[in-house]
């Protein structure tokens, strides 16, 4: 097995700043922030029924707002990342926390479809772009030694996975006990907790002679998009988004169509959430020992195998639980290696912005996973075509990650234009 070269562009640069925040501080605060930001949004589906019934809206009104939220998250990601790289993650996280709270409160108070789309869609999408992985990973990349970076990203991703796992029952209890509007107000208060946590990720300003930008935003973007490994990585991440959201959204109705009890679907979702925590942590840890492109290739290959067996094998509660456990391990396990590769190739200076661009591809895949899942089901009367499309995309993603080189890009001279 090839050895991993942990050198990256920051550590290779003699003028690079020293690590400024302690790793435990970055991990604790980063993990808590991602737990909140990823967790709160994960239970939004639970609000569909009470909100649409209370307001007299169609489900389409709710679905459009969620689609806008996902796209806004993806589209705002590079901008939030660029601001985080330039002005510091702290400011972006605080603004993100305020937007998150504002979005949840206005979501509770919206009385028209347009206002709901603006709050639950646009505001919350932008809030998520400022409070999730890309922004936090920038701080990790700048403050955690490259030898521990993938592991640290795995810890943070596992915290986000745990947030998703935790908040579904919490939000269900809040809705049942206090009503959906009060539940949203409480979640808004919880989102505000991101702001004080962001203090732990506040990076001190370094002396300009050692940390002045060695590369402009435009040249960093040109460099990244001209680099084949970045393009392959971005293409692979599209498939991750497609599969995860297709399975998360459409699997319950697939199981219902096959005549399985509702409890099977909820237990499957719980298993996905539980094993997702382990999967993201393990993938991050493995990234310290094995070449990360191979880890990604293995993840996409295993997804293809798991889906194929699931679709071909007789469907029983046991087969559903087994599939949910396996796909749970592979669920967000792509997040740490993908982002660690970006940091390793290009360095930490524009990590959040470049991570935001890779994530945009993920969100476009997510959007297509939901939309195509429904569209092809309506056209063909079953999910069979989408399952096989998912397998084919997985094989392509596995192949796409094979030529990815994770070694630091060689820059002949500092670029200033």
């Amino acid at each position, binding site marked *: 097995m090839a050895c991993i070269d942990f050198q990256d562009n920051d550590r290779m640069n003699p003028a690079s700043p020293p690590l400024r925040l302690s790793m435990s501080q970055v991990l604790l605060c980063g993990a808590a922030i991602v737990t909140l930001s990823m967790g709160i949004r994960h239970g939004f589906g639970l609000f569909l029924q009470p909100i649409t019934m209370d307001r007299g809206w169609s489900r389409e009104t709710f679905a459009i707002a969620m689609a806008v939220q996902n796209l806004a998250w993806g589209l705002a990601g590079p901008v939030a990342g660029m601001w985080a790289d330039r002005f510091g993650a702290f400011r972006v996280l605080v603004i993100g926390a305020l937007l998150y709270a504002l979005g949840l409160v206005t979501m509770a108070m919206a009385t028209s479809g347009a206002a709901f789309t603006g709050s639950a869609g646009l505001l919350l999408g932008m809030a998520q772009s400022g409070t999730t992985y890309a922004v936090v990973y920038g701080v990790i990349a700048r403050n955690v030694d490259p030898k521990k970076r993938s592991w640290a990203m795995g810890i943070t991703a596992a915290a986000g996975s745990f947030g998703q796992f935790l908040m579904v*029952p919490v939000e269900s209890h809040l809705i049942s006990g206090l009503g959906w509007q009060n539940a949203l107000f409480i979640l808004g208060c919880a989102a505000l907790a991101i702001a004080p946590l962001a203090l732990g990720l506040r990076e001190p300003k370094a002396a300009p002679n050692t940390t002045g930008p060695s590369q402009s935003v435009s040249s960093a973007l040109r460099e990244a998009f001209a680099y084949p490994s970045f393009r392959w990585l971005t293409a692979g991440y599209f498939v991750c988004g497609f599969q995860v959201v297709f399975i998360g959204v459409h699997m*319950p109705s697939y199981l219902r169509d096959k005549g399985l009890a509702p409890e099977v679907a909820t237990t499957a979702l719980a298993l996905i959430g539980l094993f997702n925590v382990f999967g993201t942590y393990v993938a991050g840890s493995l990234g310290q020992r094995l070449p990360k492109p191979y880890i990604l290739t293995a993840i996409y290959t295993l997804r293809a195998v798991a889906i194929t067996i699931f679709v071909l094998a007789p469907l029983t509660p046991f087969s559903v639980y087994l599939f949910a456990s396996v796909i749970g391990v592979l669920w967000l396990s792509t997040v740490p290696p993908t982002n660690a590769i970006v940091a390793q190739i290009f360095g930490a200076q524009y990590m959040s912005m470049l991570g935001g661009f890779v994530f945009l591809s993920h969100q476009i895949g997510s959007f297509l996973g939901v939309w195509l899942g429904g569209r092809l089901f309506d056209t063909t009367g079953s999910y069979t075509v989408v399952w096989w499309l998912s397998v084919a995309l997985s094989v392509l993603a596995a192949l796409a990650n094979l030529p990815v080189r994770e070694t630091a890009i060689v820059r002949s001279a500092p670029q200033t234009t």
Partner: protein
Amino acid sequence: MNHRARSALVTLAVALVLAAVFLAYLSPHLVVDLANRVWSCF
């Protein structure tokens, strides 16, 4: 407390928290509530 003991304690705490959350999913009230909500989406 040495590193190994601390690591074991952290692992145990994480396992307990995960088990508690997983059990929350399996409580009859929550399962029925979640199932109704999941089903009503389709």
